């Protein structure tokens, strides 16, 4: 009788407990799923952070390195600039991939189709990226450099994967196309005026040198007045050489033009010094004076 009672008690309590535990156990399983989901959410937030870090830094990195290359080379050479940027992108990719791999993230960045063109009104820019480099304030963007780049970012942490295929259109605040046009305009103008010298009746080479200096001075002033308000600086320096060979005066004129984009936004800070993008060009004329006959080469 005694044992029968304890058996009944045990059975009754076991039954009650089972009734209680079953829903609790179910809740426990649900919480496990919830824990996994939240952990995955945290991983997704982390991957999003990495993605924005890559995009914003890449944007800034390409702009700054383009400016650096233009400032260092002084030349308008798009192909050189593209090769330089590809080299820099390799460094960027390795730094980012290695850093985040050490943090337990599988990161792969691929770059394609880097190209450079001049700014045009048809191009669409991301205002958030523009503002990150204070470029929304830029009002004079004629002749500005544009960089196009296709980027694939592949990220993986735990069960979370993130793949992005981006077409970046980057406005580099450096008016090198305008600087180059100013150089061409200046040389064309000087060339036209020098050509007119053949129509004059000049017999003294000193007179030709004087005329040349006047042409340079007038052109320099005209171009300077035209572009000064647009924060463009023009430096022109000349040199001449005279030789007398077989009764003919050979006058060589050497011209060196530097055009600078003096906008602060176009400059870079290097070792505490502010440097501005510059395009430089050299040109030479050979004038032969034989009596009163002038030949220009």
């Amino acid at each position, binding site marked *: 009788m005694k044992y029968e009672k304890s058996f009944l008690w045990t059975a009754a309590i076991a039954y009650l407990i089972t009734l209680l535990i079953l829903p609790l156990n179910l809740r426990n399983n649900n919480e496990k799923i919830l824990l996994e989901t*939240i952990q995955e959410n945290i991983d997704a*937030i982390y991957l999003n952070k990495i993605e924005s*870090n890559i995009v914003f830094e890449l944007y800034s990195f390409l702009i700054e390195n383009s400016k650096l290359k233009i400032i260092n080379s002084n030349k308008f050479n798009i192909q050189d600039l593209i090769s330089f940027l590809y080299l820099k992108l390799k460094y960027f990719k390795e730094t980012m991939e290695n850093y985040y791999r050490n943090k337990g993230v599988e990161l792969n960045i691929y770059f394609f189709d880097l190209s450079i063109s001049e700014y045009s009104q048809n191009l669409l820019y991301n205002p958030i990226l523009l503002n990150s480099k204070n470029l929304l304030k830029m009002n004079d963007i004629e002749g500005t450099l544009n960089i196009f780049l296709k980027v694939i970012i592949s990220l993986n942490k735990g069960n979370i994967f993130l793949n992005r295929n981006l077409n970046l259109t980057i406005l580099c605040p450096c008016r090198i196309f305008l600087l180059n046009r100013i150089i061409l305009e200046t040389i064309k103008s000087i060339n036209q005026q020098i050509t007119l010298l053949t129509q004059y009746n000049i017999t003294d080479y000193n007179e030709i040198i004087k005329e040349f200096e006047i042409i340079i001075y007038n052109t320099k002033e005209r171009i300077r007045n035209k572009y000064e308000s647009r924060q463009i600086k023009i430096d022109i320096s000349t040199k001449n050489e005279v030789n007398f060979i077989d009764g003919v005066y050979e006058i060589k004129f050497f011209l060196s033009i530097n055009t600078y984009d003096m906008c602060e936004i176009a400059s870079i800070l290097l070792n505490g010094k502010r440097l501005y993008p510059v395009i430089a060009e050299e040109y030479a004329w050979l004038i032969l004076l034989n009596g009163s006959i002038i030949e220009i080469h």
Partner: protein
Amino acid sequence: MISILDALAAFFITLIFLSFIYPLYYNSSELSFLIKSKHAYEIANRVLALSYSLGYIEELKEKLVCNESLEGILNKIASICPKEYECEIFIKNFNDEIISKVGSIKKNFAIEQEIILFTNFEEKYLLIVRVAF
């Protein structure tokens, strides 16, 4: 009258019951910890994303290049953090040395989000946002 056998049965049943309840309790505390840390991660992310889009990161890089004081710009970044959260913002170089830091955290738990900054072409830094919960 309760027999020894009844008492023993009740004791073992209680043990079984507790063994089920304990992981449940443990999970609940882990769950609340994770929910709070997820929220802190979101806040840190927002601080970093807004710092980029408002141009603060650009300003910070300029100051790093010019060796100027970083406190002002780090305070600007810290001001993005909601007032009800404790935030720390600091800059480290890649040798793990702290260059500048603003804010302080008194709570026991905090999460950390960092970004790599490329300045002066070959130099790299880490901007770290720590949010307590």
